[in-house]
């Protein structure tokens, strides 16, 4: 239900002229509710910005959302999948 709530909030803000980007954890909900701009995340509920106490991973998600906000488009809606950067390869043994 969180996904519906943020999608509906995004729509109301956008009706008032405020540009929005909504993160969603269930893309199927975004497809039905239709927020103006949404970034679909592959994370579990409770973990919308990827991982706790990892600012760079959180910034990566936010940056993807901000890029969507900056995407020039004449009209919406826009829905984009977020793909986390792959984890770094294991260090080679010395």
């Amino acid at each position, binding site marked *: *239900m969180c996904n519906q709530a943020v999608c509906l909030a995004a729509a109301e803000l956008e009706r008032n002229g405020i540009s929005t980007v909504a993160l969603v954890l269930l893309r199927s909900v975004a497809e039905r509710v239709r927020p103006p701009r949404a970034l679909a995340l592959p994370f579990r509920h409770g973990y919308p910005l990827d991982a706790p106490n990892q600012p760079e991973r959180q910034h990566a998600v936010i940056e993807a959302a901000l890029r969507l906000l900056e995407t020039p488009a004449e009209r919406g809606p826009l829905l984009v999948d977020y793909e986390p950067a792959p984890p770094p390869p294991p260090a080679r043994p010395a």
Partner: protein
Amino acid sequence: MRLRYHSKSGLRPVACSSTLSPGGRAVGDLSEFSLPIRMFLRGYRWRVVDPVPWAPLRVPLARARLALFSSAGFVMPGQPAFDEGIRGGDPSFREIPSDADPAALVDTHRSESFDHAGMQSDPNLAFPLQRARELALRGRIGSLNHRHWSFMGSITAPGRFVAETLPRMAADALADGVQAALLVPV
């Protein structure tokens, strides 16, 4: 990090990404929920935004004022908790000052359908106040609004939320001069 644009003209069902989170979850996967919740979600009549409003960003983000909106149910110390006892969901909201200590935010979202450990350990995970401040310091955004908005996600009957809460939050944000908003579910 890569962005994939599925549609510029509308939302269309697309194949699920093969990308898995560290938690092993595919995009759109309901498997993390219990069977009763999965059944409820499959039968639920979702609200549909129609027509879809569209407000392009009128200024460069580096000059825009940003506000956060989160459905994680956080409150400030001293603010009343969200009431899980309200039938259909608590439609109220709380204002979170921009200078609040994120670590002080209190999780009052009592839903047992997701793991609270991450956001209790680091509220920025669902209410990225410190991350937003860093964006302002870096100049990625113009400024951070002096207040942000917290509400509940477990709203199954969103009539009052749509008719009363959202217009009030939007009017307040507009009055503040907010130009861009990041919305975070939990």
